[in-house]
């Protein structure tokens, strides 16, 4: 944990978090004096999700996502907690940078969406063209900015030119210099009501979308696809696809097991808030589902590494995923009932 100063001379405590968007949102709330943890934001903003978008290619491979679309967690959490945010997008990069400097001078910290490739303080292995990374700018320094990146465990410096490139990168999901900061935050938000809304929304997204690529249906159809994959597209191609799925699950700032552990942390916190044993039990169940996801990752890694020599094969990996689907379905169905019984 590191303490930094903002331009207004106010101390800012940097918290290391697992996911960029929920980390940034909780830091903005904390800066305004509302103590709220990252998992809480993640749960209230209904971050947990699943989707397999075989028609959208990223480095030539289909996207599988374990969370809702970028920007949704921030938007939903802000709305449900009763915060009013100023959001800006810019056509002109120069205007975008000027506005950022102006806001920073007032002592306000600013959250923004950037392209992760151009942020040179990252290790090279993390850098790829992805326009959905969120960071917080603390203050201006000599030819650069002081940045609190929630994914790293300490604040860093970023050059002005890097930041400008990152903010105005082109391509899918263009950030167009998107920046946001709170105008007004309810100092005593109704956490309970917000939690219930978040849970209900998550249940709907996981269970009720009538398309076979989202939610539980998405997990099931992807699992079945994985089982058939080596015959359909050949072993080598199948390995690439499988590796990409695991990469999305573990690598892209998830806190482990494709956000499942973070959601379990949310359920645990909610259980304490409501004093509900049901939620505590669901949190434990979520943890063990997360462990199955981890096992899926281990098995997949072994398939990729040993080229299918051992007893690990695609049916086993797909089978593990089917187990996850079944257990998650039961969990969200129960959560749906439990959440409706809770009193705000």
């Amino acid at each position, binding site marked *: 944990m590191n303490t930094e100063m903002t331009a207004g001379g106010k101390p800012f405590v940097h918290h*290391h*978090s*697992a996911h960029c968007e929920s980390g940034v949102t909780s830091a903005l709330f904390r800066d305004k004096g509302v103590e709220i943890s990252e*998992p809480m934001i993640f749960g209230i903003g209904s971050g947990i999700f699943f989707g397999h978008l075989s028609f959208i290619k990223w*480095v030539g491979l289909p996207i599988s996502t374990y969370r809702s679309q970028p920007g949704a967690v921030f938007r939903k959490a802000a709305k449900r907690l009763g915060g009013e945010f100023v959001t800006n997008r810019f056509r002109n990069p120069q205007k975008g940078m000027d506005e950022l400097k102006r806001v920073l001078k007032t002592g306000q910290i600013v959250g923004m969406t950037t392209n992760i*490739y*151009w942020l040179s303080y*990252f*290790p*090279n*292995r*993390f*850098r*790829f*063209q992805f326009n959905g990374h969120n960071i917080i700018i603390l203050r201006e320094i000599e030819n650069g900015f002081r940045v609190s990146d929630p*994914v*790293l*465990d300490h604040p860093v410096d970023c050059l002005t*030119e890097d930041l400008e*490139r990152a903010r105005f*990168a*082109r*391509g899918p999901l263009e950030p167009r210099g998107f920046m946001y900061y709170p105008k007004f935050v309810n100092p005593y938000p109704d956490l309970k009501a917000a939690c219930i809304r978040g849970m209900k929304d998550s249940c709907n997204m996981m269970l009720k979308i009538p398309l076979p690529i989202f939610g539980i249906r998405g997990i099931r159809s992807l699992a079945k696809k994985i089982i058939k994959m080596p015959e359909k597209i050949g072993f080598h191609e199948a*390995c*690439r696809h*499988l*590796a*990409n799925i*695991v*990469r999305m699950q*573990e*690598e892209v*700032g998830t*806190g*482990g*097991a494709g956000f499942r*552990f*973070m959601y*379990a*942390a949310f359920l*645990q*916190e909610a259980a304490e808030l409501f004093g509900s044993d049901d939620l505590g039990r669901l949190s434990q169940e979520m*943890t063990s589902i*997360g*462990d199955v996801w*981890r096992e899926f*990752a*281990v098995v*997949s*890694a*072994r398939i*990729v*590494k040993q080229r299918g020599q051992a007893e690990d094969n695609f049916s086993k990996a797909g089978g593990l995923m089917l187990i996850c689907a079944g257990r998650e379905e039961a969990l969200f169905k129960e959560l749906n009932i439990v959440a409706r019984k809770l009193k705000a």
Partner: protein
Amino acid sequence: MKVNEVPQDITYYEGEKRACYALNDKGKYVIVTSSGWSAEEVVNGLAVTELAANLEETRKAVLTGLKSPLCYHMERRQMIPDILAKTAGIATFRVKRHFRPEIFDKLKLSVLDRYAKALAITMQELKTVPE
């Protein structure tokens, strides 16, 4: 995942650590930093070596005169023609055309300058590839 199960396998994050959620011995969730996981290393390594192999192939193609250096530098920035076209403000079909060395050689300075700015490299670098 328990706190002592958080993988601390390899430090390929170049000294950085990432946060994981894990249960401590009282059964409460806490943030634990992880220095890397071998399973993740395998799948990530696959993607990284693939990118490196493609880049190397392009570099050789440039040296034998099959492709223009622009193609190499685009791949080095992990871009695709669409993204490069938007960043440089040049139509995609023209970007693809400029991958042909004979056409790339005849490009005007103003066009090269736009590519150099879009790729954040100097004009000299843009015209060559590392030997």
